[in-house]
Every structure is written in C-alpha cells, then in structure tokens.
C-alpha cells in the first residue's frame, strides 16, 4: 500500500527506554521548561524547598505568604509542611489553592502544570504576552523577556 501523505508512524515511539530522572528525584513541566528537583520532602504530593518554588514559578516565600510582585497568597499548613525542622511547599496543594490546573503521574514522579490563573489574567485582561520558553534549532533559548524592545512575530506551522 502506498504510504499516506503526512504519515510518520515510525516516529511515534522511536526512543529507547531511559529513566526520567535519578532515583528519588522529581520532574516538573511548566511554561515549556522541564525542571528536575533533586531535593524533595517525603510522602504523598510534591514537596519542594522555598528556593525551588521560586526557581519554578517566581513565587517567593515571605512571612505574609507566597508572593509574586504585589501579589501575596497566604499559606495554610495544607501547603506549608514541616518535616524534621525543614519547611516544604506542597506544590499540588499550592496549585489547588491557586486553581492552577495540572496533571500528575505520581508513579513516575512527574507533574505537568498549566498556567497560574493570576499570571494568565494579565494576558486575558491587559493583552500582556504570556511567559514561555522555547529552544531554537541552534540550541539558543528564547523567553518572552528576550524579546523586549523588539517587535516579534511568532508564527506556528507544522509539517503535517
């Protein structure tokens, strides 16, 4: 049978099995980035350090809560967890508090987060471009911030 147009069945699963991350680590997908957390709290959910929270989404832990610029979200002990004197942020509970959609594969230790509604509101109300990160074919990373001071046309297409 003649091969159909724009059909690449051989590319559906071309990769050999490899570990997602080292034993005990977790992987988080957010805004086009793939982030590995090596240091996580124990138990159900995804417990990360305050520094890793900032690394992920810019929120900083302050006395009044988790803050991003002017916005501060008070945190209860559903989100803030203490284990042996160490403070962790439960990212699932934080996402639930923010009404941030996510899909988790806890068995594999991977969490994929949608946009934080408070960030999305800037786009939906003020037409401020959303944060994103892509890597070009030469390996150079482009983020929204890299486009400042320039006009940018972002166009999608596909081979299909």
């Amino acid at each position, binding site marked *: 049978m003649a091969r159909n147009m724009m059909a690449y069945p051989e590319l559906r699963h071309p*990769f050999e099995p490899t570990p997602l991350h080292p034993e005990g680590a977790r992987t988080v997908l957010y805004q086009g980035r793939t982030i590995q957390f090596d240091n996580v709290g124990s138990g159900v959910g995804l417990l990360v350090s305050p520094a890793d929270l900032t690394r992920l989404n810019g929120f900083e832990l302050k006395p009044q809560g988790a803050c991003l610029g002017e916005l501060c979200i008070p945190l209860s002990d559903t989100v803030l967890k203490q284990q042996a004197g160490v403070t962790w942020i439960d990212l699932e509970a934080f996402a639930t508090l923010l009404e941030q959609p996510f899909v988790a594969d806890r068995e594999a230790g991977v969490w994929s987060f949608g946009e934080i509604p408070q960030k999305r509101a800037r786009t939906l109300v003020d037409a401020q*471009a959303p944060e994103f990160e892509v890597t070009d074919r030469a390996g150079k990373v482009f983020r929204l911030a890299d486009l400042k001071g320039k006009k940018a046309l972002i166009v*999608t297409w596909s081979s*299909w």
Partner: protein
Amino acid sequence: MDVPVWQRIYEQIDDPNFVLISAAQDTGGEAVAGPIFDAAGATYVQVVDEDHVISQAFHFVNVPSAAWIDENGSIVRVDEGTYAKTHVISAGDQSFTFGTDEYAPAVLDWIANGAHSRYVQSAETVAGNLRPLSADEQRADAAFRLANLFRAHGQAGKAEHYWDMAQALNPESINYFRQNLTLSEEGSAGESFRARREAYLREGKDYYRPLDIGAR
C-alpha cells in the same frame, strides 16, 4: 509551505529590531520539520516545538496561527489563520487553493508603522480574540506535555495514555487531533481528517478565526 515565504518577507523587512520566531508544532521533531527549514534557507529563529508550547501559551488550536508582540511585551494581534500567501495545490487535473494574500502586507505595515499601524489592535480586542481556556483544556495541554516526556523516554504506554487524555480533555484542538494522526499509518490528511473537516463545515464552525484585516 509558508516557511520559505516567511524567509523572503523576513529578508525584505531586514530590521535588527524585528524578531521572527517560526515554531513548527511537530512532535515528530527535527526529522520532519528540520528539512523544511533547511530547504527554505531560513535565517529567522527556527523552533521545532515538539510540545506545542507556543500554541499552548497563546491558546492556538490550529496551524498556522500567530501573535504580534510589541516592544513592551504586549500582544497587538493574535490567533487568526495566518498564511503568508495564497497557495495553490494541484493534483492531476484538480487543484485547490488555500491561504491568503492579506496577512503578510499587514505584517509589513506593522513593522513599518508600529503602534500607528492600522492593523494593530487594542488590548481589549486582543483579549477578546484570545480563546478562553477551560480548566479541562489547560489540563489537556499539561497531559500533552506529559505524554511527550514519556515518549522521549521510551515509555510508549504512558505516552499513549496521556495523548488520549489530551484529546479527550480538549476535543476541539485540531493540533492534537492532527498531530496524533500524523504519527499513525493514516496520516494527518486521511479519512479521519476529511470527516472532521466536513463536520466542521456542516456545523458552521471556524477551522480558523477569519482574518478581520481591515478592522480597527
């Protein structure tokens, strides 16, 4: 088919303060998208966006779609059928036409005139043109990325599970629908695609949001 056309437009603009990011929404990766960029001799920013990150960020559900971002990081035009020209495809004694010659001149006008271009839209219009995303549709995007991560690590079962989840959570996404068909024997332009397109036409749904190029 637009990839070389955008290259000519990019060369024509020739402005160091203009960035063109062309993002192939192709989970098949460099193997399928790379040769098309290379054949066009592309010198603009070329991204093989296996996870459809750009479509997710700007709420696109089909290709081609585009966003204009000004010097201050504001979107000034977004999400419409953004072909760079009218294309004619001939097959035997039949031919069909798609695309538009209206969009590229609007881009040129914007680059030349900036905020004064009549094609620049207000924040209110742009916000209205961004598709609202339900929680399920956002979870669809999260699931699609998860699927691709598992695919990249050779875990076919989980990849299939989350691809299915993405389509179930966002059945209106042409991108997810056709991307899935592309990685199958049937291909992205086979029977399933034709049936889907005919259903859209029958129901009067927009395959793309129509260009509203004159309005301001």
